């Protein structure tokens, strides 16, 4: 028996028409939608401080309004991490939208990952930075703290009849592994199968990035406008096939899939998750036919007794600005403007922790190699307070009349500061957490 899982959102901000396009052109059993990047939880937490009803991905409910009738008529459950730090509020909005459409989905939430208010209960050693071993600074308030849950709570929700599953923080690949566990009845100790399901989830979690998006091979041939999103077909033994709907643009090949497989990974022998440590170092790929790749050779071993968790704390403010200088001497003028801004920042009494400038078009990304026809000067600074960052924002426009020639201001309006959200990953004991699955029946 083969279970087919499509992913139609690779991140919050992805193509809003992709889910509808997938439902009308593809054949699959489950639809996943991935909304959470590393820093999203901290951003959502700040939004919730302004408005307690918030804290979830606000693009998700309108998308549900667009596709729920179609997904329910095809019997396709939707699984998403759009719940963010307020899965319950997200669920309530979905239920309200459903009533408006005359539909009655069972909506589940998976929560319990959020430990903002309980950070103080953890031992200091469990809160040391997972890579640098630095302690969590006690004087900085924690903006968000979320453990990455795995697939089994999602499988539970599906077992209890959910049509829509809204989670908080889970590992992205769990959105796909959850339905595989449920459908195939995999148990916690079937590590090879869990590893295969995990990797299938990893391949589809970034959407079009597996089907020819961001492709460093023959990208010129990709029809991006109608790019198909990936579908993972996984059988009971964990054999994986990746495809996309045939009437869509893009490509599924060894090349596109191997790029996505190696995205955001470290050691391929030890790809960690809450449910399994996958070893895909010996993975084999085979193009079975056009736009269909078979994947074998993945093994799994037991996970650790810890969840990876992300904490964010606020530690200063960031602001950046971009300005265009044209030839002649575009780079020299841009550099002159950069040193002007550095000097004016100091004169204004701004405590600048870091000052960074780069010339886009003359080697900002990959080291300066040549003189360009025009250059974008980009300057970014860090300050301890919001006021100081705002003050920097007022120093830029005067370059328009009182600086080097042939300038055009790139950003409309005055630049605005944003908080610096320091990222502090930790490894916390699983026994301190209790994933909560709740299903609200129609």
């Amino acid at each position, binding site marked *: 028996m083969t279970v087919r899982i499509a992913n139609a959102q690779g991140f919050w901000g992805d193509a809003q028409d992709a889910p509808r396009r997938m439902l009308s052109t593809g054949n699959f059993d489950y639809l996943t939608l991935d909304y959470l*990047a*590393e*820093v999203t939880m*901290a951003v959502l937490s700040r939004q919730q401080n302004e408005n307690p009803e918030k804290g979830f991905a606000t693009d998700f409910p309108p998308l549900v309004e667009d596709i729920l009738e179609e997904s329910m008529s095809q019997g396709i459950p939707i699984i998403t991490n759009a719940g963010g730090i307020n899965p319950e509020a997200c669920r309530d909005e979905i239920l309200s939208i459903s009533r408006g459409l005359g539909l009655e989905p069972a909506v589940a939430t998976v929560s319990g990952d959020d430990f903002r208010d309980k950070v103080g209960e953890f031992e200091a050693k469990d809160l040391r930075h997972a*890579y640098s071993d630095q302690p969590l600074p006690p004087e900085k308030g924690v903006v968000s703290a979320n453990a990455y849950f795995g697939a089994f709570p999602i499988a539970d929700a599906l077992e209890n009849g959910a049509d829509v599953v809204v989670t908080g923080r889970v590992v992205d690949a769990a959105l796909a592994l959850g339905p595989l566990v449920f459908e195939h009845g995999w148990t916690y100790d079937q590590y090879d199968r869990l590893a295969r399901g995990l990797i299938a989830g990893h391949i589809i979690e970034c959407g079009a990035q597996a089907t020819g998006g*961001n*492709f*460093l*091979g023959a990208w010129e041939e990709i029809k991006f406008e109608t790019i198909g999103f990936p579908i993972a077909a996984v059988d009971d033994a964990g054999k994986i096939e990746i495809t996309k709907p045939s009437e869509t643009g893009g490509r599924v090949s*060894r*090349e596109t899939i*191997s*790029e*996505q*497989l*190696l*995205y*955001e*990974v*470290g*050691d*391929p*022998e030890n790809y960690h998750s809450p449910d399994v440590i996958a070893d*895909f*170092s*010996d*993975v*084999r*790929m085979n193009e079975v036919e056009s736009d269909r790749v078979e994947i074998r*050779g993945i093994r799994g071993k037991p996970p650790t007794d810890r969840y990876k968790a992300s904490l*964010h704390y606020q530690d200063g403010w*960031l602001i*950046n600005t971009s300005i265009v200088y044209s030839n002649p001497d575009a780079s020299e003028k841009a550099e002159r403007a950069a040193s002007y801004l550095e000097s004016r920042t100091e004169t204004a009494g701004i405590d600048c922790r*870091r000052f*960074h400038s*780069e010339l*886009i078009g003359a080697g*900002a*990304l*990959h*080291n300066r190699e040549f003189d360009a026809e025009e250059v974008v000067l*980009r300057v*970014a*600074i*860090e300050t301890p307070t919001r006021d100081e960052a705002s003050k920097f924002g007022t120093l830029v426009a005067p370059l328009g009349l009182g600086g080097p020639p042939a300038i055009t201001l790139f950003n409309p309006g005055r630049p605005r500061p944003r908080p*610096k*959200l*320091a*990222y502090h*990953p930790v490894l916390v004991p699983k026994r301190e957490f209790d994933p909560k699955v709740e299903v609200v029946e129609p």
Partner: protein
Amino acid sequence: MKLHEIAHGRSGDKGNKANVAIIAYDPVDFPFLCDYLTEERIATYFRSVLDNPSVDSVARYELPNLAALNFLLDDALDGGAGESLRVDTQGKTYAAWLLRKDISEAYAAYQTD
């Protein structure tokens, strides 16, 4: 001759680390990649973005069946997505950067060995 003529790849982030994957189009070029793309060479090539521009900042992993190498670069992103002041906060252009490396001499020499 540039590396992108014999390979493609992808780069991404894990906190303040960047991963850079290089995949040979033809498996016959994998031994050359293993020989040429040493941790040292990678550390030197990316020195302008590494907090600690030494070989200690680079780990290399091999996937022979994919003819691929994966490099993990420590502290390569000026703090990472929430903290970096750079335009490329997540290392999204790093693989493209490496693929522009000139390999003319080394590749020619490798063929004749």
